[in-house]
Each structure stands twice: as structure tokens, then as C-alpha cells.
């Protein structure tokens, strides 16, 4: 049985760890709330954009644009959104696992664009092909950052570096549930025809300035930017959620360990006292 001093030292060390995990949990919870607000705030724009695009695509079939053009898939790119930091449970591992799976199933040549330090480090370690990297986006990714990444990816696509680009990110379902997902970013899949609830005649009445094709040309890049922005926000909210859960259970585990150690500390103390009494008693016996 370890001595009382050793046990005491361990309890102290676990307690300080617990304080850290507790603090991290609370910080993550606060950040999560903020991220969630941003996800909600980004919705009106994204919805409106999609509506306009649906109408445009439904009204004027056969529109051409480089970002819509489907090419033979020779080189496929993956934009992988991970965190810059760890200590968030399986968050990064899940994204990496999904990416690995996609890479295995992909027959064409592949290359990656990691966003976030954890993903980049992993890709570097495995010596996968990396075209571009983005790190240190901070806890509150803004639209400007998303736009920068989106523009670069679109440029790579138009230059023919990639024939298809997929986006791997974590979808935020709730504070305790996050789902790694993969969506195709480029070429853009036009949203499906809204169909019955919106008669085609409605769209024909629109005036397009300067022209449907001109509007499409300004709209499509924004669509990609918004998609990426939304993914960034969702990924960030997921990261905070995952970290909150991970740190919550770490704090619980620490509490459990402290309980167990306190029990054995008390036992050790009791044993020592018993021993001392025994010694006193037997010493007195011997004097008789």
C-alpha cells in the first residue's frame, strides 16, 4: 500500500488537472454558444442565395459557367476542416478517419487542402500530397477568411489543378452530437428544381441585369464562398461542442479518481493510527 504522503500528492495533482478541465469545459461552452449564434445568423443569407439560384437555374436551363462544368475526374481535391488544437475528444480523429476512407475509395489521383493545424500535421506526417494549407483561423472564423479559402480553391479548380473538390467537415447536430460529413464543392451541383410549389412561369418574369449569365457569374462564386463559410462555422461549433463533452467527462473522471484516492488515503490513515495504538499497547504490555 502506497504511503499517505504519496496518495496526498496524487490527489493534489489530479485536483489541479480537474480544475483545468473544468475551466476548459466552461470556456468551450461559452464559445459554443457564440458559434451557434453565428451559424444561425448566417442562415438568412444562405437561404436567400439558394432561392435565387434555384430560380435562375429553373428559369434558364442550359446555363454555362466554368464552375458548373463537369470534367473527367483525374485529380480530386479534398478540403479538410479540422481544429487547430486538440483536447476535443474524437473530433479531429473522426474527420481524419472519414478523409482516409474517402482517399482509399478514390480511384483518381488525390490531393488535400487542410484547414486547421491538426489536419495539416497529420497530412504532413503521412506524406500525402498537399496543395495548400490554412491554419490559425481562430475561434470565430469570419466570412473574409472563408472567402479567401473559397477563392483559392475555385482558382485551383479553374486552373485544372483539381477536377473535383470535396469538402470534409463536421456537421453540428447538437452540443453533444456531431457528424463528420463530406460534400461536393466543385463542380457546383445546381440545387434541385424546386418543382411543384414554384411554377416555372414565375421565374420567366424576372428581369436580369445585366443578363441571366452575368448574374450567374457573380452568384456562383458567392454560393461556393457561402458553403465554405457555413462549413467553417459548423465545424467550429462542433469543435467547441466536442471539447465541451470531452472536458466534461474528463472532469467527471477526475472526480471519480479523487473519490477513490480519498478512500484509500483514509484507509491508510486509519491503518497507521491502528498500528500506532497497537504499538503503544504492546509497549505497555511489555513493561508489566
Amino acid at each position: 500500500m502506497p504511503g499517505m504522503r504519496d496518495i496526498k500528492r496524487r490527489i493534489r495533482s489530479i485536483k489541479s488537472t480537474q480544475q483545468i478541465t473544468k475551466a476548459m469545459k466552461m470556456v468551450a461552452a461559452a464559445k459554443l454558444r457564440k458559434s451557434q449564434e453565428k451559424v444561425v445568423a448566417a442562415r438568412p443569407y444562405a437561404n436567400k442565395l439558394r432561392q435565387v439560384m434555384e430560380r435562375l437555374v429553373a428559369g434558364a436551363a442550359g446555363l454555362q459557367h466554368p464552375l458548373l462544368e463537369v470534367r473527367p475526374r483525374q485529380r480530386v481535391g479534398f478540403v479538410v476542416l479540422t481544429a487547430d488544437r486538440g483536447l476535443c475528444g474524437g473530433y479531429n480523429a473522426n474527420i481524419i478517419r472519414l478523409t482516409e476512407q474517402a482517399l482509399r475509395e478514390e480511384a483518381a489521383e488525390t490531393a488535400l487542402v487542410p484547414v486547421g493545424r491538426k489536419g495539416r500535421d497529420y497530412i504532413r506526417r503521412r506524406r500525402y500530397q498537399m496543395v495548400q494549407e490554412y491554419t490559425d483561423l481562430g475561434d470565430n472564423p469570419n466570412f473574409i477568411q472563408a472567402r479567401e479559402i473559397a477563392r483559392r480553391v475555385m482558382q485551383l479548380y479553374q486552373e485544372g489543378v483539381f477536377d473535383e473538390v470535396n469538402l470534409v467537415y463536421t456537421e453540428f447536430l447538437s452540443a453533444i452530437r456531431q457528424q463528420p460529413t463530406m460534400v461536393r464543392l466543385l463542380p457546383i451541383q445546381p440545387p434541385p428544381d424546386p418543382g411543384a410549389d414554384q411554377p416555372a412561369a414565375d421565374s420567366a418574369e424576372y428581369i436580369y441585369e445585366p443578363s441571366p449569365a452575368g448574374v450567374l457569374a457573380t452568384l456562383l462564386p458567392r454560393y461556393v464562398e457561402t458553403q465554405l463559410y457555413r462549413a467553417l462555422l459548423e465545424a467550429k461549433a462542433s469543435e467547441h461542442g466536442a471539447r465541451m463533452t470531452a472536458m466534461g467527462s474528463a472532469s467527471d473522471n477526475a472526480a471519480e479518481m479523487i473519490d477513490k484516492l480519498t478512500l484509500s488515503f483514509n484507509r491508510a490513515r486509519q491503518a497507521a493510527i491502528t498500528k500506532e495504538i497497537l504499538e503503544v499497547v504492546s509497549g505497555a504490555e511489555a513493561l508489566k
Partner: protein
Amino acid sequence: MAAKTILMEIVTPERIVLQKEVDSLVVPAFEGYLGVLPGHAPLVTGLKAGVVKYTIRGKTSRLALSGGFMEVVDNRAVILADTAERGEEIDLARAQRARERAQQRLKNREAGLDVLRAELALQRALARIKAGE
């Protein structure tokens, strides 16, 4: 029949900037400024960096935009802007510095200058100054 006001909504990817009933508005469309009055026909247009002017009961306010597009339908004008700043929010001194920087760059024409980008930056700065004054 025609309504007296039109609902103007200005939305950026990060937030809803403004949502107001206005008497009229003028936006920087691709082919020049374009006025929208209540009861306008359905319209979709791209927008450049510039100033949005809108009038509520004879009072005109301005707003700086840095590109985007607008949809007008059912007496609603929805402006989807990349960024939008209200006149009173704009830091004039900063905008002026940005303008000078952009002008300097365009004048010097150093090697490797992204002319298009510098011009866009200049346009943005001008729009903000105009909206802020």
C-alpha cells in the same frame, strides 16, 4: 394599387444589417446606379462596390456596399451584400487612408501589382467615404 413603401432587406453572410420599409432606394448595379421604387417588377441584378441610398419619409440615408446582388420581388428588395456598413458606422479616417493607399499603389505601378485588386480596393474605399460623409 401600388404600395407606398417597399421593404428593403440588407443581408450579409454574417448578419442581417438592415430591414426597413423605405420610400425608394438606389443601388450600385453593374451597369450604373439603379433606382427601385415601390411596386418594382421582379428583378435580379449584380451589384458593384458602391453606395446604397435609401429614403424614408424624405430622409435619405447611405450605406456602403462592397459588391453582391439584389433581388426585387413582391415589393421586397433583398440585397445580398458581401459586406455592408451604415454611414454612421464608418470610420472616415480609416477609409481615407485606404483610399490614399490604393491611389498610391495605382500611381506607382510597381512590378507585380494586382491592378484589378487595387482598383477594387479603391472603389470600396470611395464608397465608404461617400457613405460616411
